[in-house]
């Protein structure tokens, strides 16, 4: 028995077998330890098939029939994951209507179900960040004060202090976040669309991402602007403009009235 084993050790198939065993062990540990994409597993084969059809009809002209991408035109989508697809398609950025410094958001072209199908098919091409669960984007579970701290350290320099948007170089811009859904905010952080950096779970933990969402949702609360009209929430420039238009405008009108009465 021992002799037989010793003999097998020298077999020409032994290294291959050992390598297979090692790969299996690493893969098994990874499968247990790695964070499981929560939404990815819910897609049915029908959905994936529909997604492929939709992709080939609407996206393949730029991204290629199997999403391999085309040099200088569109990137490969293999391994971008469902989060990126859902973000780009549900905000209307994809399919892109025309060439521009960056893809602008517009009314989405696909229904929620179609978007999900597209995301499901692209997710099968290679592993990538998947869309968050409902719990991960539930603003009521987040801490808005911590979100404020995370937001102003990581996001405010482009998106403005409370997410009103801001300018980037060469006509690019960080859009306003006032109408972005919690899921889209989460996906944007996870996938870093266009000029935006990726904030993976090591940069900003999933809990901190939820805090950011809570902070941004706080800006939409009924009492978000206790001082009255927020004038675009862009700070002193619009305040300065309104003091000239409303303040000086009204008072010069009053002065003309007072000065004109007796003459």
């Amino acid at each position, binding site marked *: 028995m021992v002799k037989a084993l010793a003999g097998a050790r020298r077999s020409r198939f032994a290294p291959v077998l050992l390598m297979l065993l090692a790969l299996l062990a690493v893969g098994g540990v990874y499968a247990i330890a790695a964070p499981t994409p929560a939404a990815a597993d819910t897609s049915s084969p029908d959905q994936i098939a529909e997604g492929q059809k939709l992709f080939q009809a609407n996206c393949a002209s730029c991204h290629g029939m199997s999403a391999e991408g085309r040099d200088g035109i569109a990137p490969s989508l293999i391994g971008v994951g469902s989060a990126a697809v859902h973000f780009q398609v549900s905000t209307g950025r994809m399919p892109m209507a025309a060439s521009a*410094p960056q893809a602008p958001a517009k009314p989405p072209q696909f229904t929620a179900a179609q978007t999900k199908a597209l995301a499901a098919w692209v997710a099968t091409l290679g592993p990538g960040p998947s869309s968050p669960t409902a719990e991960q984007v539930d603003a009521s579970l987040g801490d*808005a*004060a911590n*979100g*404020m*701290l995370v937001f*102003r*350290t990581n996001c*405010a*320099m*482009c*998106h*403005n*202090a*409370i997410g*009103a*948007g*801001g*300018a*980037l*170089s*060469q*006509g690019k*811009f*960080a859009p306003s976040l006032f109408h972005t859904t919690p899921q889209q905010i989460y996906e944007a952080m996870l996938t870093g669309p266009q000029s935006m950096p990726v904030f993976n779970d090591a940069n900003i933990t999933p809990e901190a991402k939820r805090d950011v969402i809570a*902070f941004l949702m*706080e800006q939409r609360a009924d009492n978000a*602007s*206790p*001082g*009255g*009209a*927020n*004038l675009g*929430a*862009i*700070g*002193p*420039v*619009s*305040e*300065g*403009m*309104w*003091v*000239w238009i*409303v*303040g*000086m405008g*009204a*008072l*010069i009108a*009053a*002065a*003309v009235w*007072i*000065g*004109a009465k*007796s*003459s």
Partner: protein
Amino acid sequence: MASAPTTPAAKLAAGTGDFFDTRIGAGKLVKEFARKVFPDHWSFMLGEIALYSFIVLLLTGTFLAVFFVPSMTEVHYPEDALPVTMRGVEMSEAFASTLHLSFHVRGGLLMRQIHHWAALLFMASIVTHMMRIFFTGAFRKPRELNWVVGFTLMILGLLAGFTGYSLPDDVLSGNGLRIADGVAKGIPIIGSYVSFLLFGGEFPGTVIIPRLFTAHILLVPGLILALVAVHLILVVVHKHTQYPGPGRTNRNVVGYPLFPVYMAKAGGFFFVVFGVLAIMGATLSINSIWNYGPYDPSPVSAGAQPDWYMLFLEGALRLMPGQTEFVTWGGYTVSLNILVPGVVVPGILFTSLAVYPFLEQWASGDKREHHLLDRPRNVPTRTGVGVAILTAFIILALAGSNDIIATHFHLSINEITWVFRVLFLVGPFIAFMVTKRMCLALQRRDRELVLHGYETGRVVRFASGEYIEVHQPLTDAERWVLVQHEPARPLEIGSAENERGVARPGYKKLQRRQKVSNFFFADRVEPVTPAELAHAHDSHGASAVEGADDHASLARPERESLEAGSGAQH
């Protein structure tokens, strides 16, 4: 008291009046001030807006000072307080007390917002008032010093605004302080000492808020109050200027007495100003510091700008190319990228404003007193210079908003910046030339009007077959306004040598002065003289049979008034 008062009320009034009269000379004061005459014009009330918004600033500022804690001690904002986004966050006491007075003091947010709107309005009305003074030449003798007082008030207003803006210790105002720190450090040799002196050590330190508080509530407003008193006393001493018109001369003031007419008008206007500010404070949010959070030197948010009156400095900084920073021999950094926009550009803008009255007087050699205002078109170079300075200021302010312009008009921020760089260098010159030409053209139009009257559009055919358009002549009052002024002419400096052929000492200096004078006054349109008017009417009389009667009846009085006018001018 010649006749004793009869009713009890009259007795009481008389008694009170007598009490003050015999002790502080109230009778004389009332007599002097109540009968002071002010001319009527809306533009004479712009300074009042500034005064009244300053009063509102004092009132609301006192309220705020009761609740504000000028301290940089670190605290944690309570977990049960508003706003939600600040709960448990570490912040300075200054920031925490500003949040507290905004969210937990009844009327606190309203007071804060009125205070801030009043500060913006204070500066806006000062600038508008200054424009009125500049473009109408109200700074001429004897009011040059009052111009300087007003100019100093504007600078103090900037200081008051900047110190107040920085007090809440939020991220946005901290960014502003950091720029001030950078500008201080940009000054060669003494820069870092200045910065350490201001901040009591390395930025941000722990003393800047208490120091700014002292400046904001004591030093600067005290100086403003004192200078406002000087400003107003000088207005009384000089008497008010007035726009030209029939019966208005350099020796009189045509208008209404302070009591009762202007007591009512000015008093009422105070309430209008207060009312507008209250409405703005109640409905338009301003400087929501909880959006920015407590100061931390690391974050800067997009759309970080100062209040509008400092925006030109921000713009200058944004336009200046960064490559102008270099290291000299010996390893010293010269930050021209900060020094030029932070010190040189505002220095030129402000100095040219402060010295302008003296420069113009030097160029014109006019030492007479002027109490009649100029119509801006009648002094084309001054109007052009004023518009050029304003153009530079506005371009810089827009450049300071370049990111907001980029996002709101979907433009490239790089392209906007380049456009503003070019505009800042050529825009003021174009504005000067266009304005000057427009003024000269308007003066020529005035001449046309005086000589030929208004076009009526009524075309008449004579028996001979000739067509003419009937012109309606101006009334005496209308004509007076258009011909009363005397344009300044370039200095005459005579010949380079005296009558014995010897070179005159100081002639070079005179020549330089004449050059400046030529720049100011060489291009001009002389107003219509009585002789020209008579000539124009005579030539009309020959052909315009229809209008001849009208003209003949008006010719005499207007010639008389013109002569009287030119007599009074000299």
